[in-house]
């Protein structure tokens, strides 16, 4: 009898009898099914669709602001429109990262 994986601990006679009574193919099947289940745990097709939607939230108000990415571009436009410039500075781009 070949056991795959960790050998069971030394056990009482009743437990030893229990293991001996399970056909090896059933034991292997259970081990493989268990590992496949844990490998796919939490990522079924339904979970994929739910998560993909959850991580794609509706645009927040700040995303609708017409951000420029260059200070000079903003200054050029502000001069034409006679407006001040609002510059948001972060470490990591404010429109990316967090």
């Amino acid at each position: 009898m070949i056991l795959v994986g960790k050998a069971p601990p030394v056990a009482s006679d009743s437990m030893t009898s229990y293991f001996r009574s399970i056909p090896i193919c059933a034991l292997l099947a259970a081990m493989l099914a268990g590992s496949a289940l844990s490998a796919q745990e939490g990522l079924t097709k339904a979970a994929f669709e739910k998560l993909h939607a959850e991580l794609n939230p509706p645009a927040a108000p700040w995303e609708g602001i017409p951000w420029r990415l260059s200070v000079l571009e903003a200054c050029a436009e502000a001069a034409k429109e006679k407006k001040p410039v609002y510059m948001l500075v972060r470490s990591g781009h404010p429109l990316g990262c967090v």
Partner: protein
Amino acid sequence: MRTRFVPVAVDQHIHRRLQDSEGKMFAKVLRQAGRDLDGGAQGVFCFTPDGTLLTFQNVAATEPVLRLLNGALRRCDPAAAATDAPLPADFRLPLPEPPPGGLIVDVTSKVLGGYEGTETRYWQESIGRDHLWIRKDEAAALAQGKFPVSLQQRIACYHLVDNTRGEPPMWEAGEIKQLELTIADGQIRGSVHLETRRGDRGYQAQVLGIIEVKDGQIARLDLVSKGQFWGEGTFTRNSPKGKFPFAVAFRLAAADCAACRVPPQAARLGATEYLR
């Protein structure tokens, strides 16, 4: 902000290193606010088109920002604003360029659980954002049903990161313990195990996705990785204790999205290494 200002968003990590006209204007505004190019310039700056500072404060909450904006409007004389501030003839956007003919992918991430108490509510709801750049040749391979190793590694090293609380540490190539992404019948499947040598940070996840091709071009690329993350970085403190569920999602970016021009976090000082 939308109608009475011209808003601009800047990553100081990039701008403080610029030596051209863009960098000089950035430095001019900072120094009037008592800030310098040493990395400590986060905040909101309001100034006239010629770079004269009106107001500054390092704030993010609504009320202080509103006070800042109103203060700037009170001080700003539209008639005195410069009437001409042309762009230099050789002006280029001060950001690394995406690969020509390639793809830009939106990347979002979220901690799915594990925070305790109500004080961490902000982090529980936080969505990390970034972009993935795919080279033209990699996009062509994807369209033919092959997942290039270079792209797999780029995704693993630079995008399976917890950026929900700040700038994350990336993974090094030697920290990829296991990585496999395959395409079959329009489905992407795979798994990944990333872990530092000390074992103090890691991510084990399954990956599932959909890819659609039309006329030889990628028309849809939706991907999710979901698994257990542990550990934190210098700028991403206060992660949940132990292992916590963490997911990253990918989708093609909209063609006309201004924010899509923002380079990946890992490419902001140059894209050569990132795209390798």
